[in-house]
């Protein structure tokens, strides 16, 4: 049971990260901030698993990393969605929505 929830969490985090990158290149810190703002602090996400997810996605070919300059002129590692990443995101989104709708159907009073 415990390992199941971890897997779910990991998968969830991957979707969130991919979603964050839809609008363009971002460095890791920006991704972290974007997710915090969008979840209104409802989900407390540590940064360590976030970076793990970013590098794992790079290995899988969903994102591409390159060094660039941040808004305050420091060298930062920027991440960009690849075509394969966009495809993954679409599929994951669809799966999540179907899952959530199913759960809502159960919870809604008949």
């Amino acid at each position, binding site marked *: 049971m415990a390992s199941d929830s971890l897997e779910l969490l990991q998968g969830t985090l991957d979707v969130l990260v991919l979603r964050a990158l839809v609008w363009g290149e971002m460095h890791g*810190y920006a991704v972290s901030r974007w997710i915090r703002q969008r979840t209104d602090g409802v989900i407390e996400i540590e*940064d*360590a698993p976030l*970076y793990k997810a970013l590098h794992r996605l790079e290995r899988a070919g969903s994102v591409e990393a390159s*060094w660039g300059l941040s808004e305050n002129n420091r060298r*930062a*590692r920027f991440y960009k969605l690849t075509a394969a990443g966009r495809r993954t995101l679409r599929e994951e989104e669809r799966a999540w929505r179907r899952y959530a709708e199913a759960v809502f159907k159960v919870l809604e009073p008949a």
Partner: protein
Amino acid sequence: MSRHFFRFPWRTRRQIGADVDEELRFHLDMRAAELRSLGMSPEAARAEAMRQFGDLDDARRYLNAVDRATEVAHQRTELMGDLRQDLVYALRKLGAAPAFTITVALTLALGIGANTAIFSVVHAVLLQPLPFFQPDRIVRMGFVYNGAPDAGAPPELNDFRTRSHTVRSFAMYSGASVNLVREGADPELLRGVRVSANWFRILGITAAHGRTFVDGEDLEGAARVAILSDAVWRRDFNADPAVVGRVIRLSGEQVTVIGVMPRDRAYPLTAELWLPLVFKTSELAQSRGSRYLSMIGRLAPGVSVAQAERELSQIGASLALEYPRFYRSLAIQPQPLQTAIVSDLERPLLVIMGAVAFVLLIACANVANLLLVRASARESEMAVRAALGAGRSRLARQLITETMLLSLLGALGGLLLARWGMTALLRLAPTSLPLVGAARLDPMTLGLTIVVAVVTGLVFGLIPAAQLGTDVATALRAGSRGVRSSHLTTRTRGGIVVAEVALAVTLLVGAGLLLRSFERLLSVDPGFRPDSVLTFRVSLPARSYESDTAQRMFVDALTPRLEALPGVRQAAVASVLPLDGSDLTLSFAIRGRPPVPPNEEPATQVLSATPGFFSAMGIPVVRGRLYTREAQPGTPKEIVVSRAFVQHFFPNEDPLGRYVDLGWYVDGDRRGGTIVGVVGDVKQVGLDQETPPMLYLPYAQAPQSNLRVLLRTHVPPSSLTKPAQAALRDIDGELPVFSIRPLGDYVTASIGPQRFYATLVTVFAIVALALAAIGLYGVIAYAVSQRAHELGVRLALGATGRRLAAMVIGEGLSLTLGGLVVGIVVAAAVSRVIGSLLFGVSALDPITIGAVLMVLLVVAALASYVPARRAARVDPLVAMRGD
């Protein structure tokens, strides 16, 4: 895909670690700054940032591991992508220049194919161990009897068996031709060998069917048994395993077949039948003088050949002390069996291997030249690619891919050529060369081909790669015209041509010397006229022709019957034919001279022949007369000797009328006779050998059972094959006729190996010459095309086309001359190696060297002439405008 053109350099482990650290530091700094802006103290902000991050060390480890895997994957896909790109590009480039591609591939194919074919032969003969158990422990003994190489005598087998500790077991053998008579088939003469019973145990081979000999089967009174070779078993017994145990008729005796040997695993290699070597008790008791046996042995564990030689020769010395009546001295020279079998082939094969290696070198030099020319023609292409961001190593890899592809094409062509060449080679090879027939294109030779191809690809890919200019700007400025090839590359190319010519000269000199030797050999007078004579062998079996009378009566009946055949001018019978590798050497004494100790008697080759032999062979009478048909048993014994016999034994005396006693006793009668005549010398052993002293006995007074029949004809000799066989069958239907061939075939066969070697080396020399000419042509033609501008200026300034052509040819010739000088020096050094293969020609034969110089100069002039004509026709306007 963009990574291929603008990619980041590959990251090391340390760089990955540094990148991870920098990324994490950036994150923590940003988070801390954000928290500070919310009013936190710097220390608190940093601590909070750390807390929000989570397990930093664990994350760092994880990120490092993942990034390393990512990096490896990137490198791999990039390399594969590059390779595919290189291959596609190379194929396109090679396809765009088909003339270049075909020339290079064919050149390499020639070099690789010739080497593969010859190496398979070298491998089969010299490198592949004999198919016996621990073959390097088997030795063949050479006997040195009274200071001269000789064979062994029957009692010596036991002497060595009982006295030697360095050799574990000994066996003796001698050749024995036997007639095989089968129901409903022509009788047949088989090449048999008589061997000691432990023969096959020493070799360590077993029978394919049945068994080999067991102890005691070589003792007097044992049952008669025989072992068949695979070839005879298939040819005469339909490969029927049930032949084991069957009784067959061999030379009139009933013999039981006990086994069949496997194919390719038998010794002697050409034996068709093995019989036990049985010594009669009388033979063992005293016949140390009758030396006709060969001996092999297996060394005891840990004993070297040299140790065995020392011990065996000591035993020989003590035998000489014990039996002074028979020996002046006896030494034994053991030799590893393989060495003993192939020692005659080693030198020629290595020379031929050297010749093909030269061909490969010349082929490679040519390819290098072509690649250099191509590389300088592509300098601007390379410069453009470099300017667009291709690294030097990337360009080098591209070039190497191209040449590798070329060499693989060459290897493929080479394999096809080798397969075809092997067939031709095996057909050309004389059957007298041992083991050559076993040559195959096996995995070993295939492997060698591939290695050679890969190495040539690497080496010749690197040469143009090394020429890649680093100075992109200069290359680009030179524009579409391409870069003036530097002085250095011109010199490199010139050097390559000089080397090529030198190699070709060396090969041509070697081939020329071998050809001259061969021609000398052909012009040697054998002492007889080999044309228009048909010969065949008949072996009279002891069972029905045991007595001299029976043998004589057979010959008396045969000769007139053969002479009655239409087309036959004369028929004759002799015991031995010249150049057939068999002889009978006997000691003798001249009456009236002081007696000589038994072991210091002179020896001569002895031959029994009917009186017609001399005119049938065309051997002239020099002095006196021939013996006649009147020489019969009971009449005075007469003999004829050769001129060499007189020179050796009657240097200052008249031989006619002198009486010679031979060391050949039959029923208490001693053979010999009065010399009635002297005949011309005959090359008995080989055209390149001395003529030995010969003594001829009238067949009627000294009959033998192994007969050579000669028919001098006035029709083509082969047309008499059938009638002669029929005539023989009329006399005795059980006699096989064997080795039916014109006398000329013996002459041809005796120089077969020399013909083979000379042919091979000549073929390779011609290939080398052609390749060198192509190389020279390529360099001169390229130089002319590169210098079109200069030539145009010269023309505009008044030079004539003739002058320009002469200049170009002069350049070609000067390169050739350089190669000639180097080549002659190398050839002089190398020809000493082939000295032992030459006959009647010095290794520095001026005629050969002169001819080679002429040939090369003519070829070089021709190779330069074509580009020179182009130079003479340069249009000055076009040439200068084109700049």
